[in-house]
C-alpha cells in the first residue's frame, strides 16, 4: 500500500474522472440486485440508490449515495447530494432490512447533503438526525464503506454502523476542505492547506477510531482496475458480514453504541 501520498494527492485521485461509482460496483459485488424506489412520503431521490441483492448467497439490503459518471447522470442524481427524501428512502429500506433479517451494506460517496431551499423546507436536519438515531438501534448488522468522499452529516446519515471501512484514497470529513478553509480562515483558496490539517485520510480515520478497516486500491487508484477493487470490496464485505451475523444481536447493538460513544478527546 502506498502510504506516502498526501491527503491532497488522494483527494485528486478521488476526483479523477472515471473513478468508479456505486452503479459500477453493485453488479460486480452483488447478484440479483433489485432496486427499490421512493420514501413513501414525498418522492424518489435519485441521489440515493437502494434495494435488495445477494452477497455470495446471502440476501442483503444495499443503500448507496450515487455519483454520476457523466453530466447527464450527475444532473439526475444531483451530484450525489441527497435531499431529505433520499435519507428517508434509506431509512425505509433499512427498516425493511431489519424486518426481514437482512444485513445492510451502506456505500457512501457524497460531497454532503444538498444545501437548498427545498432541502431546508422538507427538513434536511431532521432527516439526517432521524437516520443517525434509528440506525443506532436497527436490529441487524450494518456495514458502511466510504468509496470516495464522505462529506459531513450527509455521509453520517448512512454512516452509523457496526464497522466502517474506507477505500485507501477515500476521505471522510466534517466539511469539504474548501468549506473548511472558507469558514475558518474566510479564504476558500487555502483548501489544500486545510486538506492536510483536517486529518481525513484512511489511516487518520482508523487512528481516530472513526474507521476500522482500509480497503486497498489498485496502484494509482480505483479507476485503474475496477475488477480488482470490486473484488477487494467484496472480499471484505463477505468476511465482515459473516462475522457480524454470528454475533448475538444485543451484543452487536451494545458494541455499535460503544463504537461512537467512545470517540472524543477530553480531560476532567
Amino acid at each position: 500500500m502506498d502510504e506516502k501520498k498526501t491527503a491532497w494527492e488522494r483527494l485528486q485521485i478521488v476526483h479523477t474522472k472515471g473513478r468508479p461509482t456505486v452503479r459500477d460496483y453493485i453488479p460486480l459485488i452483488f447478484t440479483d440486485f433489485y432496486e427499490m424506489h421512493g420514501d413513501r412520503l414525498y418522492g424518489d431521490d435519485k441521489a440515493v440508490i437502494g434495494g435488495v441483492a445477494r452477497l455470495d448467497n446471502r440476501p442483503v439490503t444495499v443503500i448507496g449515495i450515487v455519483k454520476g459518471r457523466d453530466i447527464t447522470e450527475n444532473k439526475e442524481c444531483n451530484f450525489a447530494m441527497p435531499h431529505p427524501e433520499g435519507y428517508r428512502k434509506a431509512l425505509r429500506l433499512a427498516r425493511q432490512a431489519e424486518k426481514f433479517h437482512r444485513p445492510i451494506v451502506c456505500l457512501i460517496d457524497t460531497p454532503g447533503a444538498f444545501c437548498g431551499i427545498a432541502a431546508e423546507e422538507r427538513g434536511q436536519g431532521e432527516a439526517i438526525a432521524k437516520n443517525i438515531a434509528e440506525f443506532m438501534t436497527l436490529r441487524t448488522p450494518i456495514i458502511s464503506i466510504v468509496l470516495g468522499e464522505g462529506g459531513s452529516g450527509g455521509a453520517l446519515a448512512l454512516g452509523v454502523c457496526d464497522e466502517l471501512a474506507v477505500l485507501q484514497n477515500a476521505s471522510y470529513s466534517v466539511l469539504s476542505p474548501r468549506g473548511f478553509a472558507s469558514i475558518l480562515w474566510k479564504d476558500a483558496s487555502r483548501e489544500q492547506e486545510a486538506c492536510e490539517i483536517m486529518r481525513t485520510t484512511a489511516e487518520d480515520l482508523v487512528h481516530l477510531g472513526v474507521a476500522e478497516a482500509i480497503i486497498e486500491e489498485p496502484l494509482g487508484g480505483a479507476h485503474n482496475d475496477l475488477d480488482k477493487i470490486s473484488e477487494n470490496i467484496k472480499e471484505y464485505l463477505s468476511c465482515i458480514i459473516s462475522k457480524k451475523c454470528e454475533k448475538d444481536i444485543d451484543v452487536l447493538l451494545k458494541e455499535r453504541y460503544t463504537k461512537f460513544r467512545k470517540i472524543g478527546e477530553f480531560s476532567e
Partner: protein
Amino acid sequence: MLEDFFKVVKKRFNDDEEEKTPVFKCPRCQTAVPMPRYEELHRVCPACNYHGRLSAAERIGITVDKESFHEFDADMKSGDPIDFPDYTEKQEALREETGLNDAVVTGTALIKGSPVVIGVMDSRYMMGSMGSVVGEKIARAFEYAADNNLPVVMFTCSGGARMQEGIVSLMQMAKTSGAVKLHSDKGGLYITVLTDPTTGGVTASFASLGDVIIAEPKILIGFAGRRVIESTIKQRLPEDFQLAEFMLDKGFIDMIVERRKMRSVLSHLLKLHGYNKKEV
C-alpha cells in the same frame, strides 16, 4: 485630509446617538434598544419580539427553581484530537473571557418542583459548536436521565460541528443521537427548546429528536447556513427563511413559546407527561 473629514462626520453622527448608554441593535428589525432596557426584558426586542441570546447561566436562572441546579462535569475540558493550530490557546482565552469550560452546561434541576436533567448551550463559547466535550456532556446527561427515569430539557444554540476537531466533531452527532435514542427507548420525555441560532450538526442530531420541540420566536433554525444556500442556488433567500415561524409552518416544530412563558409551559408539559413534583 479626507480621513479627517470622515472623522468629523463620524463624530457628529455618534454625538447624535445616546452617548454613553450601550445600545442593542436588533438583528431582525434593526431597532436600537438601550441595553439596560433590553436586559430588563431578558434580551427580547420590544419592537419585533426577537428573542436574543442568553448565557447559559442567565438561561438557567430564569428557567429552574432557585438553588435547585446541580451541575454535571463542570471541569471537563476539550483535548485537541487533530492537533489543530492554536485550538488549545483559543480555548484558554475563551475560558478566561466567559468563565465557561466549553459550550454546554448540563445538570439536574427542578422546574416548578418537577425534577429534570437540563442542558443549556452557550453561544459565547465558539458559537456553541459541538466538539468532544459538548458531545460527551450531552451523552452523559441523557444516560443519567435514562438510568434515573428523568425527563431531559435541552436548550440548543449552536453553529454546528466544531471544525477545529475535524471528523471527531462529526462523530459527536452520532454519540449524542445514540444517547437520545437510548433515553427515548426507555420511555423518557425529551423536550428540545431551540434558541437562536440552532444550525448545522446540532440541528442534524439531538436538536431535531425531541418528543416535543419548542422554539423561541423569530430565531434561526436550519441545517445549512443562509450564505451557503445563497451561494449554491445563486439567489437571495426570502427574509423569513429558516425563522422559527417558517419552521413551524413547514411542520418541524411543535410550538413557539415566548421567553416569559417558557418556564410555565415547560412545567405544564412535564406534568402532562407524568413528571410531577418530587415528593420530599
